């Protein structure tokens, strides 16, 4: 089933595509991805969304991927041949509320071979408890695939899309009783010894080994990179040196520092006090190897009947920022003989029947169905 791309400022085309998907009986649900730049306003978009009779889930993301190309503006409509059981969540509520709502909205969504699409406001402070609530409810029954919506400006705005409108500080899920093939990898590797997070709060890392976090980080990174941090080049260097949280028998969970303020490292996602981390580094080759690995894992898990020629990709925007123009190579790697469509996200959500659900950074997720 082919995705459609609608350039920005072509509302008429968007509307007509939505109408078409509405009357196409083979299309059961729709993934709606909109790039942040030149995005349609809520006033224009909401009426179109509300007119759609097919379940819609999606969001506004920093960039999109369509047919193996980066798209910094426009809309991707990705039709699905299966009907999603969708549910919207207000992330200002409590975990008990989330469980209650899941209990009422998803009480029949307990099949083992299933998939759960999750798109979440990347700036929400309640992301982690929502993800934990999802895991508490669904366990490892479904394959989780999704990511964080938002923009690189890291300013809150309405970025979660449903049939009823566009929401801020929200999350949208869509469950289907069908298993997709998933591959997750990142390609970053450790360049430091394990370091203890001695003080942290949510996504802010205050101290490492009882020393100011940035000082420790800086010492290691500068030594490795042979570059010096200045007042305005933090991200330029840091994008190559994420942090990794160790796990037994699994890929490290990557954490992406995006700014430093008063020696406090600000990460894209949460980091817990007491955890051991390592400073990671990668290069184009390792990252591409990671991308390939993700694709291969997905293909290895795919079943007969899955469209291996259409690859759905959730890739971290910071990988793009790191690779810059070489990002095309990553898209080529994962879409060597397939169409690649997807989103560039702020944080990735993925799990494949193995373990606790986590939010990843700087990671690539490949899905096939």
């Amino acid at each position: 089933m082919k995705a459609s791309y609608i350039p920005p400022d072509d509302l008429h085309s968007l509307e007509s595509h939505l109408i078409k998907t509405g009357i196409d009986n083979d299309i059961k649900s729709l993934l709606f991805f909109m790039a942040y730049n030149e995005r349609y306003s809520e006033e224009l978009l909401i009426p179109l969304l509300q007119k759609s009779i097919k379940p819609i889930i999606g969001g506004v993301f920093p960039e999109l991927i369509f047919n193996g190309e980066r798209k910094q503006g426009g809309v991707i409509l990705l039709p699905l041949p299966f009907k999603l059981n969708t549910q919207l969540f207000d992330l200002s509520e409590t975990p008990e509320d989330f469980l209650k709502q899941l209990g009422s909205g998803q009480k029949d969504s307990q099949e083992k071979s299933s998939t759960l699409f999750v798109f979440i406001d990347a700036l929400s402070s309640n992301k982690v408890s929502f993800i934990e609530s999802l895991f508490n409810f669904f366990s490892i029954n479904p394959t989780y695939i999704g990511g964080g919506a938002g923009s690189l400006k890291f300013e809150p705005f309405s970025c979660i899309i449903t049939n009823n409108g566009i929401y801020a500080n929200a999350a949208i899920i869509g469950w289907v009783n069908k298993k997709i093939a998933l591959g997750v990898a990142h390609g970053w590797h450790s360049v430091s010894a394990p370091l203890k997070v001695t003080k942290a709060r949510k996504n802010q890392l205050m101290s490492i080994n009882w020393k100011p976090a940035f000082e420790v980080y800086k010492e290691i990174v500068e030594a490795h990179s042979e570059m010096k941090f200045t007042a305005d080049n933090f991200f330029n260097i840091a994008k190559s040196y994420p942090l990794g949280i160790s796990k037994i028998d699994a890929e490290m969970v990557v954490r992406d520092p995006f700014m430093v303020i008063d020696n406090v490292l600000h990460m894209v996602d949460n980091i817990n006090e007491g955890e051991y981390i390592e400073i990671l580094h990668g290069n184009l080759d390792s990252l591409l190897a990671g991308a390939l690995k993700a694709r291969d894992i997905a293909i290895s898990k795919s079943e007969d009947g899955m469209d291996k020629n259409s690859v759905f990709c959730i890739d971290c925007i910071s990988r793009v920022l790191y690779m810059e123009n070489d990002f095309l190579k990553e898209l080529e790697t994962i879409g060597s003989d397939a169409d690649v469509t997807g989103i560039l996200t702020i944080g990735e959500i993925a799990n494949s029947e193995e373990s606790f659900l986590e939010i990843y950074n700087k990671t690539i997720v490949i899905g096939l169905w």
Partner: protein
Amino acid sequence: MVEKNIRTEILLELVFSTSGELNDQLILKKSIPLYLRKLNCFLVGILKNTENKLKETMLIPIVASKSREWGSVKSYFTNRKPLGDEPCSQLFLEGSYYYAYSLNTYGVLVLGRKKPFDETFTYELQPVLNHLGMILIQMREIEQRERAEKSLRESELRLRTISDTTTTGIFIYNDEKILYANRAAERFTGYCIAELMTLKILDLVHPDFKDIFQEHRLDNQQGKKDSSHFETKILPNNREECWMDINIGVMEWMGEQAGIISAFDITKRKEMEEDIIKAKEKAEESDRLKTAFLNNISHEIRTPLNAITGFSALLTMPDNDPVSQSMYIDSILKSSDHLLSIVYDIIDMSNIEAKAANIQISKVNLNTIIDKLYKQFLNSASDKKLNIFKKTALQFEKAAIKTDPSKLIKILSNLISNAIKFTTTGNISFGYEVKGSFIEFFVSDTGIGIPHELHSKIFEKFFQVEKDLGRQFEGTGLGLSICKAFVENMGGEIWLHAESGSGSTFYFTLPYEKPGLPVKPEIQLSEVSIPAPKKLRTALIAEDNQINFDLMKTYLESIDFNIIQAVNGIDAVEICRTQKNIDLILMDIKMPGLDGYTATRQIREFLPDVTIIAQTAYSENKEDAIKNGCNDFISKPFTQKQFISKVMESINIS
């Protein structure tokens, strides 16, 4: 090498995850997600040891608790312990690996993974989880201790509140020394708590009860199952002694045996008990006196009745000589008088008891009464060779007062009669003096006197009766109590001066109320000019008792009345309708058919002016008679003199 370092760091991280929390639930809440994340597990569950059974208390994901698989896992690990040197129990089920680690006596932690742990790692994990278990146990014990301490504090507060608010006094003491007292104890001992702490228990006990208290002292309480219970008196500070109901038990206080006393004030109850006992004794005494009185009354009545019946029977004998007959008649009359006085006494006392002894004030001349009584008792005194004197303080014209003459005469008669009865030689004197707004009467004799200790009792009913059966003087014992009741009803006082063997003087006062108009001299029978016999006067006697009818007929015929008889009220009314020349009706009140008062009201409808005198043996009064239409009232028994005087008075008035 790096891999091993990571494992070591992760294990260390898991160990340190328990720090900073003081509650086993919070520790688990913090640690369990870390185990999930760090050990790459899809499930972590805690089976807590509760009453020797493992119960699931935490599980992530929550939804796993509904799965059949988890049920099997739980069941397996609940019944299985690691064997020998095994670090944990293991289970492979439906493609997943489950590991159950002991958390010491706290319980078991179960991990679920899709991939198996490295065997070495399973051993490395064991001490980490053992440490977690120890921390959880410590936290649980701390929590239990805190709960116990909180419960103890609350219990203490509750007890203190109960102790401070109860109205029962509580003392705790050892070696007699007071160790604790509550607010109620302060209130009824009159000492503040600080002062009580300086006292010994026995300091508070009334001297008369110290022995009883000693019997119940602490060392006597040892080993006793029940507390001691008794009543005692205490000596409060600056207050009258009071009665307390005491319970003494034994308890431990500050690690030592101590006595605990709970006490409450029963003074009021004791006072009520004493009142009840006194009332009971009084009632019993009264009952005793009444029984004695009844016995005596029976004797007093039977004695004259015996004479009356006996001499009456003798009179019927055909061969009586006039002297004997005269003696018999005299005896009968004297016995009748005596019997009548007993009846009057009983009637008076029953009226007094029923508070029906109404005072009927009228104008009387004191000197007339004194003279009358003097004449009345002169013969009795002379018979005993006693001198009798009278004294009047006012001249005749000024001796008029307003009082109840019949009661005044009764009082003086009783006192003079007693004086004569209890004097064998010497003098009797009586009279009055004016004492401001009261008239003070006296009756004095040189008789046997009255011991001082009996002065207060002598006015009690039946008092004289209480003497033993070998008594020297006859009498019902009611006279003085009747005098006292009459005097007090009329607003006066009565008292006596007497000593045993030295005679007695009785005094009583009555209010001195002067009448507005001069008092008419009393019409004496001897002064009444009986009109010349006129056979025109006709009297109707309505009386259902033939003997009483015959008596009244005899009296009226002696003053030249024609007599008509009616045997009941109906007859009386009928006769009055047909016979218009009736001058006087003597109406018995209690008659069969129609009673006297009803008959009188009916007769009044057509004979408004005829003289009707109510006559009855019941304790009716003149007011009732007047209210029902009669002109006057005479109560049985009456003498001939009294009867004719009443008749003449009524006729003269009408």
